């Protein structure tokens, strides 16, 4: 003898089907409404529009650094001395925390372009000005939590996990670069 309850357990009924489809449609509807509410927090069109910066390199002298603003963040541009280039190139890449050769980081060996934000927790490292501490490797030093970067902006000591980020940039002429 089978009761009504038992048949319900065995075979999906019309009602089960309605529950499932209604729940699925409900989930889609909630997702559709939630997405604009979540995505409104992503960068707006005007923020995205400020995504490139042009820099004239001609006034910079050897051994001098400048800081420009790209997407609200500082970008370090350094005209490296011969000594700095040699130091950056003689490092055994396999020993580095974030292995990258100097050639991968500088399109032209004289010019180092990178975002001046420590990859640890986002401070601006020191080393741009003449009197600044440059850390144990003669590059940059982050005062917040003590990360040391070398003359190619690679992390050598301290808590930061990655090298200073090289932004996308291209030479539009010999002395002009476009960052972004």
């Amino acid at each position: 003898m089978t009761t009504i309850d038992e048949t319900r357990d065995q075979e999906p009924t019309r009602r089960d089907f309605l529950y499932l489809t209604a729940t699925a449609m409900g989930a889609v509807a909630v997702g559709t409404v939630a997405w604009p509410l979540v995505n409104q927090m992503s960068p707006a069109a005007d923020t995205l529009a400020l995504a490139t910066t042009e820099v004239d390199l001609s006034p910079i002298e050897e051994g001098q650094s400048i800081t420009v603003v790209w997407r609200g963040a500082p970008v370090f541009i350094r005209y490296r001395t011969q000594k700095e280039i040699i130091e950056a190139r003689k490092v055994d890449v396999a020993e580095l925390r974030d292995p990258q050769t100097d050639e991968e980081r500088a399109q032209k060996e004289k010019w180092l372009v990178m975002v001046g934000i420590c990859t640890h927790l986002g401070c601006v490292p020191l080393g741009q000005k003449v009197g600044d501490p440059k850390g144990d490797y003669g590059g940059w030093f982050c005062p917040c939590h003590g990360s040391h970067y070398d003359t190619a902006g690679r992390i050598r000591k301290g808590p930061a996990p990655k090298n200073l980020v090289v932004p996308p940039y291209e030479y539009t002429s010999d002395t002009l670069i476009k960052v972004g």
Partner: protein
Amino acid sequence: MANKPREKFDNAFVEWIDSRLPIFTMVQKEYGVFPTPKNFNYFWNFGAIAMVMLTIMIVTGITLAMHYSPNSGLAFDSVERIMRDVNYGWLLRYIHANGASFFFIAVYIHIFRGLYYGSYKRPRELLWMFGVLIFLLMMATAFMGYVLPWGQMSFWGAQVITSFFSAIPLVGDDIVVWLRGGFSIDNPTLTRFYALHYLLPFVIVGVVVLHVWALHVTGSNNPLGIEPKGPQDTLPFNPYYTIKDSFGLVVFMVIYAIFVFFMPNILGHPDNYIPADPLVTPAHIVPEWYFLPFYAILRAFTFGVNIPLAIGLLIVGAAMAPLFTNRSKEEISLRMMGILFAVAGIFLAIGYFSQYQMESGSTMIMSGWWISKAFIDAKLCGVLAMFGSIAILFVLPFMDSHPVRSARFRPWFKIGVLLLVLDFFVLMVCGAKPAEGFWVPLSQVTMLYYMGFFIFGIPFLSKFEPVKELPESIHMAVMADKRKAQKKAGV
């Protein structure tokens, strides 16, 4: 609730309301005659004090919002205008800024009370968890509020804290951009923080209602940690504890007022009176004092998890596993646990020192990269440990299975908790100091104690701390104390 018929009120107006919405009956029941253990000490003031602080923060916050401009070009100047031109603006702002500190003081003492007297234990687990949730919401609210004046510390604090999320593998950087609403901290970040800073206090009010509701289901804990057994153990909340709370509140307010009127900036940072500059980091970024211990835990990780450390941690897990089973203490071999800990210690030391960089830049233990290389990097470890140090409070009630609540009858636990308080203060100092020299190992040791207390100490003591005999009832214990005091006084 409605198993007894409602008693009528004499006042006709009150009765008219109450017969339609029994709000007076509820207040009478929950705050008038509510039976409360009669042996509270002054630690039991701080829940009420925290509630008053929340009210003060909301009232001053709303009035400040009437004059503040949430725009990166105007924010700093609008705060200065509040200080100089708005009538009593200086007072409202100083009450609000120092209020955050005093709210945290009250809540930290309240949390200590709960920990020391075992208030988190059965049947008050949910009550405790709502409390931890309030603490988390407070931290989020306080952080976003600190960003609003748009000074240097505001800006760089926001920079550092939003950067935490970049430690998440794969999607971290995208999450940071989404949180900031741009590629750096800017106006979109400020406006959303303002909106949330206005919203969250009301969410806190909601959770406080749940917290108090849960409290009124289980009733309060007390310094003896034993349940009241009858009317001889309790007093009606009013007037006994309304008066005791009021007295404690007045003392607290006097101290608060001294800060507001005589040293309103002593808990803040002078750097925050410099307008935000995205191109210059202050020499020393420090969070507000109430975040310092957690900041120290974050920075204690100058090392990540490499292969030896992972092996060491697995052995520690194996050593501790019996503590999390139903086995009695006789069935757990302390010798085995000791041996495993010693072995784990060797692996942990190798893992740690192979990443320990000396002045020369080389590591203390020279080894192949396959030993020293961390596969969970220091940054992610730090962020996980920082959030973990609060998350662990959520599960605390389920890790502690010792039958005795109050530290008064748990001499081992008592030492552990008091050392934890000391540890918390040392972490606070470490968080305020630059991450260099002696402060780094000190913060690592104190971080280890904090974690060890909860992860190892609590389950260990649950099994091994002897169970003492408890007083028969609150009344008996109170009377015994009284007799002792009388004898001492020679009465």
